[in-house]
């Protein structure tokens, strides 16, 4: 049967050739990775051909058909401003770890993916309990198709208990249980403990040392 496919015909009207590619949406897929005191977000942005001019207008500011380092950084900063993250009701500031831009020809065909890797420290919880993180994505809201998911935490002290989203996935809430355990103390705390130990040792030796007359 397959070998006679020379006589193929479409049952229904074929989509346009560009139908192989994303067209009229700006796909924005977030993957969230939670640990005790940190959140990491991988955000993949795939602009469709039909909406590319809107996206390019924000990236290629000087309209020279290329993405300079300055333009890339400025666009990443813009995306960051459009992402709102809250941890236990408190705003959290995401930082850019890495950004990767595709080549312009790929973008022009609706095939290019801009990948942003973001992270933020979360307020430490010394005694565990139920925690909540929300992510709101407002970037290019009019043309966006959002996806957002949490990865299964690698940290065994964290267990995701619930997830909820609005119908477009522009708003996401993940609730998780964090069992009691020692969060990683900040570096200054280790420094203070070390200094205290040295000081105590010095004092102890001075007291034991015989008086010299």
């Amino acid at each position, binding site marked *: *049967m*397959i070998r*006679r*496919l020379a*006589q*193929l*015909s*479409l*049952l*229904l009207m*074929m*989509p*346009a*050739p*560009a*139908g*192989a*590619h*994303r*067209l*009229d*949406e700006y*796909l924005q*897929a977030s*993957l969230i990775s939670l640990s005790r005191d940190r959140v990491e977000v991988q955000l*993949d942005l795939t602009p*469709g*051909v*039909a909406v590319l001019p809107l996206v390019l207008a924000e990236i290629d500011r000087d309209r020279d058909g290329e993405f300079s380092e300055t333009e890339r950084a400025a666009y990443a900063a813009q995306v960051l401003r459009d992402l709102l993250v809250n941890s236990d009701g408190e705003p959290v500031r995401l930082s850019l770890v890495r950004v990767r831009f595709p080549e312009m020809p*790929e973008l022009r*065909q*609706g*095939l290019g*993916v801009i990948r942003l890797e973001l992270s933020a420290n979360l307020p430490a919880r010394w005694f565990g309990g139920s925690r909540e993180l929300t992510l709101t994505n407002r970037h290019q809201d009019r043309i966006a*198709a*959002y*996806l957002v*998911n*949490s*990865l*299964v935490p690698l940290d065994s002290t964290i267990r*995701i208990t619930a*997830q*909820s*989203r*609005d*119908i*477009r*996935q522009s708003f996401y809430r*993940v609730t998780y249980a964090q069992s009691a355990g020692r969060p990683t103390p900040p570096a200054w705390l280790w420094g203070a403990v070390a200094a205290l130990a040295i000081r105590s040792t010095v004092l102890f030796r001075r007291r034991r040392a015989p008086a010299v007359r």
Partner: protein
Amino acid sequence: MIRTAAGDTGWGWSASLRGRLRRDRLSVSAGLAVDEVLRLQYTGPVKFTLPLLRIATVCLSLIPAFAQTATPKIVAAAKTFLASLDDKQRAGVTFSFDDEKQRARWSNLPVSMVPRAGLKMGELNAAQKKAAMDLLAGALSRRGFEKVQQIVEGDEVLKNASANKSMFGRDLFYIAILGTPSEKDPWMLQFGGHHLALNITIAGDRGILTPSLTAAQPAMYTVDGKTVRPLGQENDKAFALLAALDEGQRSKAVLTYKVADLVLGPGNDGKTIQPEGLQASAMNETQRAMLLDLIAEWANIVHESAGAARMAEIKAGLAETWFAWSGPATVQAGRNGTSYFRIQGPRLVIEYAPQPLGGDPTLHVHTIYRDPTNDYGRKSSAK
């Protein structure tokens, strides 16, 4: 009582041996189910009595025969294919088994956008192409190979309907071999292009198909007046399962949000998302059987004995397997729907995502098939 079984599949084969020891005599009966769909089954009894030492020898020779996999045949086909190539072609088609870049060099996108490596079908002569197809056919089940052919030919249809002939078509599919074809040591066969990526790790008698991407555009076309839907069974079985759920189950299975694309598509190896939907432990036996039958559309693409082993793994984790749905609950008979679904278990991720990209989403479907614990056969090939 001695009991052994090899193979257990929805539409493959299964074999079993049962023996009873009495003093120095042993009675053995063998059962062989060739194809449950066709209901062709031979269940013995084959009873005979022989001295114990002789019986032990017979059993040792019988069990491997029942458990025989397709590996020797696949290895022979791979060697034939490699022998059909000239030196330059052979160098181009072979990679190191642990070549991570080549392993991950696959996509749903056209090869002009995401370049593949290996040998392009369009660059092979007729004999070489036949050898390549024989190798692929040996590594896949009959239905799996047919599905792959339908996806490839769908891309030819897309080419014929496209202004840009250089982006699509059956000549733009690539074959690659990672490692040295062997019956013992692990190696990998890759075949793919636009809308297709098969990563088949052969590790002894195991055949691991994860991660693999099957997709289709057009997802429905006609050949000689007959409708072809390469991924039609996946769609139809999923809708049938959803329809079999009661209201309470459906309220758990159906997600309250839209899903625009694959979550764990190309470039997302080794990731496991938090599962959602309805757990199979909350399904009845009939519904669980329907879920397994749906999963078999992916698990049984690989050749029969490997598919049987994979289905056994999936069955073992079925209680912890989730079924999630997003989109309409109804579909026109004989057509694909517009709904997304995901099946996720301890050793399984399947996603089916119609693509609303510039046209009718019922005509453009992406699917992904993963084992987050054993993608590229890492676990099976670990020494």
